[in-house]
């Protein structure tokens, strides 16, 4: 079985809660259960979008961050430089592609933390480049953390 896909299933669950269950929630609890239904529906929408977009977003993000770290490692003092270079050499063995990309992202982002902490001058070109990367990182997450939502979350 290939279809329905996981996003299809999540969409159906969200639609059923929203269309058939939530309107009939009449618990005498000041609207708390109905409010929870709204949160659940929007979290399902987020999960559906994340499944669709996360792998490509992480692959792109890791590649950009890897290049940034490789470019600026030489500007760092010895100790943080070793930390950054070790992160660039690290291999990941998680069983799924997304799992590997997530592990790689954690390692590279930790190395970026090290780089930022080692460069106290906010105007250093590496810090400026890091901020540009962070801006794009935010944009990459937008599909599932902004665009996916269709209504109130509570």
């Amino acid at each position: 079985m290939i279809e329905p896909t996981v996003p299809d299933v999540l969409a159906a669950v969200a639609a059923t809660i929203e269309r058939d269950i939530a309107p009939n929630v009449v618990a005498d609890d000041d609207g708390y259960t109905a409010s929870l239904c709204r949160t659940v529906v929007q979290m399902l929408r987020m999960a559906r979008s994340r499944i669709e977009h996360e792998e490509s977003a992480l692959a792109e993000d890791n590649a950009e961050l890897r290049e940034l770290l490789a470019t600026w490692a030489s500007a760092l003092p010895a100790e943080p430089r070793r930390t950054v270079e070790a992160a660039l050499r690290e291999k990941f063995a998680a069983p799924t592609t997304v799992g590997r990309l997530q592990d790689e992202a954690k390692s590279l982002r930790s190395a970026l933390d090290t780089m930022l902490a080692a460069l106290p001058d906010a105007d250093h070109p590496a810090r400026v480049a890091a901020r540009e990367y962070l801006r794009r990182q935010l944009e990459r997450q937008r599909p599932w953390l902004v665009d996916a939502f269709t209504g109130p979350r509570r």
Partner: protein
Amino acid sequence: MIRLENEGDVAVWFRHRLPGVDDVTVERVGRVSRGVSRETWVVDVRVIRAGVAAEESYVVRRDLPDGTVIPMPLREEYEVYRRLADSPVPVSRALWIEDDPRWQPDGRPAYVRTKVDGHWHLPFLTSDDPADDERKIAASKEHLDKLALVHTTDWRALGFDRIGTVPASEKHCATTVLDDIEAWLATFQFEPCPAVTEALSQLRDRAPTDAPCIALCKGTNGHGEEVWSGGQIVALSDWELWRLGDPAYDFAQLQDMVPDIVRDGRRLWGWPEALEYYRERSGIEISPERLSYYRACYGLIQFCYAHHSAYRVRVGASSVRLVWNATEVQYRSQLKLWAACGFAPETGSA
């Protein structure tokens, strides 16, 4: 075990704890839908005191089954209300914290406070009808009056220095916020977040040193946070982000209570007028620079509690509200940081 959803159990509990009552009958126990960070329950009771019957309502507060969103202990929240009980600041009266396991509803710590009659919603605030202008300005002034009251309270006399961080001097108010944030994060941050590292670095570099005083600050405040009745705030609620510091901290967390009103090109109300009104009432100046600074700090604070939610999920919590905080709210906190640190995304106006 006492079950909070069982009216008979709650009656037994209240008979045991409520001071000066001959008898208690619980009419209703219901959970309040507002409030994400902790559970809030309302208990309506009929009590008999010295042979006289009365209808009363109480609030029970406790952590979510999976822990809290904001990493502030329940007892600290109780202690804030307890300290304010005899001050001019209007709050509901904290009665007791249930630390005896035999009486804890569902085996979880809880505290009880009086319920103040009123409502949180001011529907006219979003109106664009000129007929509502006067009411909007009056409500804004009332809120500013109450903030002035909080900020001029003698916090040392009330014992707030025993439950919160006291900045070494006015000059240290801003860096103390950052120190507290770093101390918070050190206890639960499990995932690197370079945006936070960058923001902390920038905000430390440009921390203002001109706070006019060290004041009791409420934290989140404004529409949705306070109890209103007859055009007045009768109880200031939600003190989970309280601290001792620069009053600008509170203005950075003020929600919807400074409406911008311009009619026929004439400015009737907005931030400059509100800050001037507040200065007249309190004697405290809030500069735009400090206001802007603490707005950026609020991005860090929001990240802290959103990441704390993620931490709770990581260690086994399964509340969908924690998941929401851990995802969308955490992302939005970074939007605030990125905007404040000069690298907002071109498309990110969420």
